[in-house]
């Protein structure tokens, strides 16, 4: 109960911030992080079923605490930056809603919160008042509300068969309904071809917003899928996930725009997250830490176009390298948890995944090749120290000595791939057009339903 009250307070304070000025939101972010740590350490789990067997179901368990911790870390890092306009208030509301998202366990609650989050992310994206931002937000909201309508149709079919909404009580499962639900949720995760809206939205938004969107917002879809897991076979998602890793990575490799590289690489890492439901929470956490770090670094970097960086001062270069290494999976840093993804897989899939991981590492070699210039005194910001500490904690907790060589080999294999593709520069945005992405989506809905019927 205290958890719900705390989050409602957060949302209320966020809304109050539109009337009053100077509410200390940093304090709330710190309080939220402490609270998440408390939940993680003491595990005061609850399992609330409201409305009897009709099922409004809230659950706090290990899965939730992992995602709550992820949210807390990203928001703590985001609130260290200077923000303009209504961003602090909106982010406080988002924080409360996200916390509530990560405890819901029934079909309708997930729907309501996903819709609130899509409205909130649109408001966050258009905070910069640029035309591109308006347009990308519009594309996002059209696609996501189509997806959510399909989700509702699926929910209606499941409710009419089972007379309950709680996922743990569903007995008769209609496969077409599940296909529609999956198609609706997958748009929110932004896996390749479902997530054609993602590069535009994540790269055009303000920096703090991009960090939240790429770090936490896409993980709400992953969380929903993990909760819906009893309804479907995880193998349905595997083709999308396997396609997503190399495609996102290649698009990132062909791009030169710093934020676009990061956005495409988010697509690729989401594929890796969706490979297996067991490693998904941990890998989400590690991806959120590294990716939001990289996005927050954008503030200090000279230009969005990477090829224009003539020289970087050492205190800018050093955190960039650390963050890149963290996402590439240097043993001991957060990204090294990618070896967890490979467990319990067949030989062919394992080989394919290792190869695609090597491709997904390649875009970050571009940052490693930048040379620093040492002029002023070397300083490290609190945000960088904090994120480095988190990354180290995650990396060391899941450190396995026998996996060190594997991680290093994947990183090294990225080097030749980078050198081969380095000379190509492609800005191919045909599939990101509104009409094209909508027709792609209509085809994908059919494919998702068919996949769900087949398995």
């Amino acid at each position, binding site marked *: 109960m205290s958890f719900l009250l705390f989050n409602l307070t957060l949302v209320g304070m966020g809304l109050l911030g539109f009337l009053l000025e100077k509410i200390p939101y940093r304090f709330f972010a710190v309080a939220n992080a402490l609270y998440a740590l408390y939940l993680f350490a003491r595990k005061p789990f609850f399992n609330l079923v409201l*409305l009897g067997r*009709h099922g409004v179901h809230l659950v706090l368990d290990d899965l939730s605490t992992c995602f709550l911790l992820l949210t807390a870390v990203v928001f703590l890092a985001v609130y260290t930056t200077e923000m303009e306009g209504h961003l602090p208030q909106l982010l406080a509301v988002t924080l409360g809603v996200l916390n509530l998202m990560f405890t819901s366990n029934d079909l*309708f609650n997930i*729907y*309501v919160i996903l*819709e*609130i989050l*899509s*409205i909130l992310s*649109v*408001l966050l994206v*258009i905070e910069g008042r640029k*035309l*591109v931002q*308006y*347009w990308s*937000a*519009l594309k996002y*909201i*059209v696609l996501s*509300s*189509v997806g959510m*309508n399909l989700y*509702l*149709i699926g929910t*209606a079919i499941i*409710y*009419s068969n089972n*007379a309950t*909404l709680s996922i743990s009580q569903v007995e008769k499962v209609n496969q077409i309904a599940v296909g529609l639900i999956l198609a609706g949720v997958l748009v929110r995760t932004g896996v390749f071809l479902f997530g054609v809206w993602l590069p535009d939205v994540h790269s055009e938004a303000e920096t703090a917003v991009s960090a939240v969107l790429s770090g936490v917002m896409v993980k709400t879809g992953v969380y929903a899928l993990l909760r819906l897991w009893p309804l479907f076979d995880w193998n349905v998602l595997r083709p999308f996930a396997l396609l997503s890793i190399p495609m996102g990575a290649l698009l990132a490799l062909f791009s030169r725009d710093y934020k676009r590289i990061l956005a495409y690489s988010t697509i690729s890492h989401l594929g890796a997250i969706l490979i297996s439901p067991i490693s998904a929470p941990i890998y989400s956490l590690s991806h959120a830490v590294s990716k939001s770090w990289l996005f927050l670094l954008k503030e200090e970097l000279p230009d969005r176009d990477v090829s224009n960086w003539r020289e970087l001062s050492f205190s800018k270069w050093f955190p960039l390298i650390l963050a890149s290494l963290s996402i590439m999976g240097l043993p001991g840093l957060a990204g090294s948890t990618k070896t967890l993804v490979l467990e319990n897989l067949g030989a062919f899939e394992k080989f394919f995944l290792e190869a695609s991981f090597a491709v997904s590492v390649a875009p970050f070699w571009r940052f490693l090749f930048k040379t620093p210039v040492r002029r002023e005194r070397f300083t490290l910001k609190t945000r960088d120290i904090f994120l480095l500490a988190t990354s180290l904690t995650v990396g060391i907790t899941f450190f396995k000595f026998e996996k060190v060589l594997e991680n290093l080999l994947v990183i090294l294999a990225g080097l030749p791939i980078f050198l081969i593709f380095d000379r190509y520069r492609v800005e191919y945005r045909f599939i990101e*057009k*509104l*009409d094209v992405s*909508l*027709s792609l989506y*209509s085809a994908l809905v059919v494919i998702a339903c068919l996949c769900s019927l087949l398995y």
Partner: protein
Amino acid sequence: MLELMMFLVSMVGFLGLLVNKDLLKKIISLDVMGTGVVSLFVVISSKQGRKVPIPFSPETADPLPQALIITAIVISFATISLLVVLSGVVSSRTSSSDVEKIEKYLEGDKK
């Protein structure tokens, strides 16, 4: 039977979203799709009876889907109004409401 019809209504909305090039028409199609979903829920709630569920008895309509869908209506109202605002801003800045023209304008804007 009625359920299938409501499903078809929402699919017609989806089709309209694909076919129309005008932003406002797209938004109306999205609304049609939402209306189809709402009606589907209403049809499902009337499965066990059509009477008003106050006071509740086994012959009356199922109140839960109706309670759910009133939430969904409010949410879709918020989404649609946000969409109208966004498209208003976009079309006033690009002086066009045609999707292809807007995208062409944006490409020119980048160069």
